[in-house]
């Protein structure tokens, strides 16, 4: 009688040990792969940023923090840092506002909704570089379809036109417009993702909560701001988190649309790191520029994740 449970525990213990062994065996390849191919380059990035390394040469010289010190005083770097903040914040605010509105609209049913959904998701689901080629044409200095439309409605290219006498706006050739163009494209790209995230949140709000607010005669905007938005705030923060992560370190719009121009006015840290490290061949300095993103990326993500997880508990 007294032996039976002891026997069972021994067998259980053996089975638990086998399970633990299996768990380690099944996860080891993935962890090993990630450590080797994410961890090693990550370590190298820090190593390079503290050394003088070029693409061609083999000589590596310890330079300490001098890359970082030089960068802080560099005008192109300051501009890139400012642009990174401007583009990220501009995109984030616009996406959050438009995403909430669009998600509200898509909560309703209407005929042909699946087509609208497919089209609205296109900027996120299509490969980003290919979609951006369409924008390169939209912003063309001579044949821009946007400019053509503005000329047709009389806003551009005639003597008393509101946007000027010239036949084109030169979207990517003007320092201010080029920045606006980049933000528009960022918003275009991320809006579908943010919308679908907010939609997931709206769908999770129990119907009776909305019904109750309606019975209490709360108006639409009061319902939205006082009942629904607070309830889905963790989900909104998830939308903020991913908009932030996918914007702050993205260099593709700049590479395809402006190459950092005109006169370095649209470079971000990510694109400057690419142009310095790969095209300029200065790996050390490029790595240092990219590493400036790390504290921001890590810090903001950590704060947002904490907020998200805390608000979930309460």
């Amino acid at each position: 009688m007294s032996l039976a449970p002891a026997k069972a525990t021994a067998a259980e213990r053996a089975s638990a040990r086998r399970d633990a062994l299996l768990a380690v065996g099944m996860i080891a390849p993935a962890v090993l792969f990630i450590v080797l191919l994410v961890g090693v380059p990550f370590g190298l990035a820090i190593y390079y940023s503290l050394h003088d390394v070029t693409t061609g040469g083999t000589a590596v010289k310890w330079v300490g923090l001098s890359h970082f010190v030089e960068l802080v005083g560099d005008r192109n770097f300051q501009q890139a840092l400012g642009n990174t903040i401007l583009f990220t914040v501009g995109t984030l605010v616009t996406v959050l506002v438009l995403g909430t509105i669009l998600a509200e609209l898509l909560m309703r049913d209407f005929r042909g909704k699946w087509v609208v959904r497919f089209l609205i998701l296109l900027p996120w689901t299509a490969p980003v570089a290919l979609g951006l080629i369409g924008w390169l044409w939209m912003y063309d200095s001579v044949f821009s379809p946007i400019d053509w439309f503005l000329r047709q409605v009389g806003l551009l290219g005639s003597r008393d036109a509101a946007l000027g006498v010239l036949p084109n706006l030169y979207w990517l050739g003007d320092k201010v417009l080029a920045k606006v163009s980049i933000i528009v494209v960022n918003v275009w790209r991320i809006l579908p993702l943010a919308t679908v995230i907010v939609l997931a949140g709206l769908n999770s709000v129990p119907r009776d909560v909305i019904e109750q607010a309606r019975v209490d005669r709360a108006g639409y905007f009061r319902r939205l701001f006082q009942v629904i938005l607070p309830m889905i705030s963790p989900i909104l923060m998830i939308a903020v988190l991913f908009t932030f992560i996918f914007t702050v370190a993205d260099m593709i719009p700049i590479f395809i649309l402006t190459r950092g121009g005109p006169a370095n006015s649209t470079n971000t840290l990510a694109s400057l790191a690419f142009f310095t490290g790969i095209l300029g061949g200065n790996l050390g300095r490029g790595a240092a520029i990219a590493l400036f993103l790390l504290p921001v990326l890590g810090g903001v993500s950590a704060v947002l994740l904490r907020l998200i997880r805390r608000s979930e508990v309460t």
Partner: protein
Amino acid sequence: MVSSAPATGTTAPGRERVRRGFLGGTAFYLTVALFTVFAALPFYVMLITSFKRNSDLFNPEANPFWFAQPPTFDHITLLFTDTLFVRWLLNSFMVGGLVVIITLLLAVPAAYSLGRLAGSWGEVLGIGIFLTYLVPPTLLFLPFAKVIAALDLQNSIWALVVAYPTFTVPFCTWLMMGFFKGIPRDIEEQAMVDGYSRFGAFTRAVLPLAVPGILTIVVFAFTLSTSEFVYALTFVQDSAQKTVSIGVATELVRGDVFKWGPLLAGALIASIPVAVLYTFFIDHFVAGLTAVAGE
């Protein structure tokens, strides 16, 4: 109270729909139309431009949203016969396919281990793995280029086959963890009572039930690989080795000379299949992202 009760009771479905939002009828459709135009316009212009004659295309006066002259297949023909477009498509397929296989082999067992076998540390390690998905290529591509050179893979699609699982494996492991958690433990326990080992129960009893999850990660490993740009741009310079994403964006533009017709046609043709595939699974993608908030 008395007056509101009959009002809620008699709300017709039609009225209910109008009352739910802040925009009624026409304004609602107009706003939805505006958003749709904003999202789809570049693709629509690509579509029209792909079939426009050059003399129509390069006329600043001509309507860029429609045809002033009869459409032509010249750009498409040129794209398929005179450029490496088909080769880039094949490269993308090959990279995508190989990345899918590697991702499945690494992510599925890892996800089962984290979701089912490991206890509390499984959850922590799972989040840790997901966070590596959020490390942007921008932070890694410079030293990664040196690693690729050290492996002697530069200028070949194999560089991408090695690099892409660094983001597909973390994300797909995370997604798959969620799927495994949704499968009742009884399934394996029953299989183990029937004489299977734990691993046997996993392959015979759990995997068949996890097919929807596996299909999802196949689609994501594939679409994320075909869409990737930064690593491909950094690692591959040889025209014949490029994927469609960078091939179209870099090879059809020579300095200031843009082959606009084939360029836009190529971008559109390569975009649509990926977008269609992605659209079917985007809800799973979003479920994966929102799962960081915990259950």
